[in-house]
């Protein structure tokens, strides 16, 4: 059985060694689509973290009951249900964030990070390990999206978490707010992240 050291490694691998965004390059659609500001990145990250955690829990609980041939449809139904719940709760209680994220909330369903963890981890491991795995991967995703959003917001809008540190009229690198800027910022962040973790690994 797994001991505490394994759990710690299991948790940290999602953040560093197998960071879903910077290392595995999973879930690129929301990563590139919503990270035009740090707050959007954070909101999207937390929504994804919640869905990932819940789906890992349920998949790990029912794994022995699901026939092998229908496991993917079963996982997708579970994930889609949690995504719809997140969407309804956001619309009811955080309408501001709901408007900002828009179409990208329903698209969490097709985030390959979530199905990937259900298929490759939760369906093969026990409940506790699956929770730890979901938390690690989810936190890694949150950090990556917030970092990317912050980088783009600072360069493109001269602000961080809506706090403006240049004057209203100052010209900023608008490119970084626009879609191409997402690719450029992601590439540089991935390079820096991999350089840094190579040394410590």
């Amino acid at each position: 059985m797994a001991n505490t050291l394994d759990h710690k490694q299991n948790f940290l691998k999602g953040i560093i060694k197998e960071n879903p965004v910077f290392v595995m390059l999973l879930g690129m659609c929301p990563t590139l689509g919503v990270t035009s500001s740090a707050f959007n990145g954070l909101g999207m990250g937390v929504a994804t973290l919640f869905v990932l955690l819940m789906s890992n829990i349920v998949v790990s609980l029912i794994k022995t009951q699901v026939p092998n041939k229908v496991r993917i449809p079963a996982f997708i139904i579970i994930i889609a249900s949690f995504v719809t719940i997140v969407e309804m709760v956001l619309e009811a209680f955080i309408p501001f964030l709901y408007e900002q994220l828009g179409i990208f909330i329903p698209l969490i369903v097709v985030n390959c990070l979530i199905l990937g963890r259900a298929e490759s981890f939760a369906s093969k491991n026990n409940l506790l390990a699956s929770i730890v795995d979901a938390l690690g991967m989810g936190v890694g995703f949150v950090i990556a999206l917030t970092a990317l959003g912050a980088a783009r917001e600072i360069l493109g809008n001269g602000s961080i978490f809506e706090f403006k540190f240049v004057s209203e009229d100052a010209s900023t690198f608008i490119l970084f707010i626009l879609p191409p800027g997402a690719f450029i910022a992601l590439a540089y962040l991935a390079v820096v992240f991999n350089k840094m973790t190579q040394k410590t690994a």
Partner: protein
Amino acid sequence: MKKKESTLINMVLVLFVITLAAGLSLGYVNDLTLEPKAKARLAKKVNALKTVLPQFNNAPVSEVVKVKIEQAKDSIELYPALQDSVFVGAAVTGASERGYSGLVKVMVGFEPDGTIKNIAVLEQKETPGLGTKMKSEKFVKQFRGKNPASFNLKVKKEGGEVDALAGATISTRAFGEATQQAYDAYMNNKEILVKPNN
């Protein structure tokens, strides 16, 4: 992990149970959030009304007049504002589908003669940092106190008088169109609003 045998019966059964559980939990959450969702939408509307209307002491939300026009998908909503039963203006919604990413919906507050009091953006999906600046004070300022009868709501590039947002001419154009739609609806339906209903 021991893989479970896939027979027709257990595949159908398992998927049936999962979809049933999913359906039930979704229905339950939908019920729970129905009221807060409606409340959030209403709160947003009331806030917008307060920012665009002059001082009023009636309840515009319950006295709303809805008008269907050909160009718009949703009906236009007109909210009359009365101060001590005297008509002081109205808030009118207007929309344009021609934003950079689709729908731009605004609420425009008019004084009785059609002069713009203030404009609030209700819905937009424009580019963050560019088109979203249509909400900024600096941009909205140029519309205040202008009467669309003499103030052309097109952008300067197209012969109008609106200073376009830098890098977001399309968003600005949609904003102007939506405002124009609200103005037209207001002028066409003013009689219904002014007429005291009690």
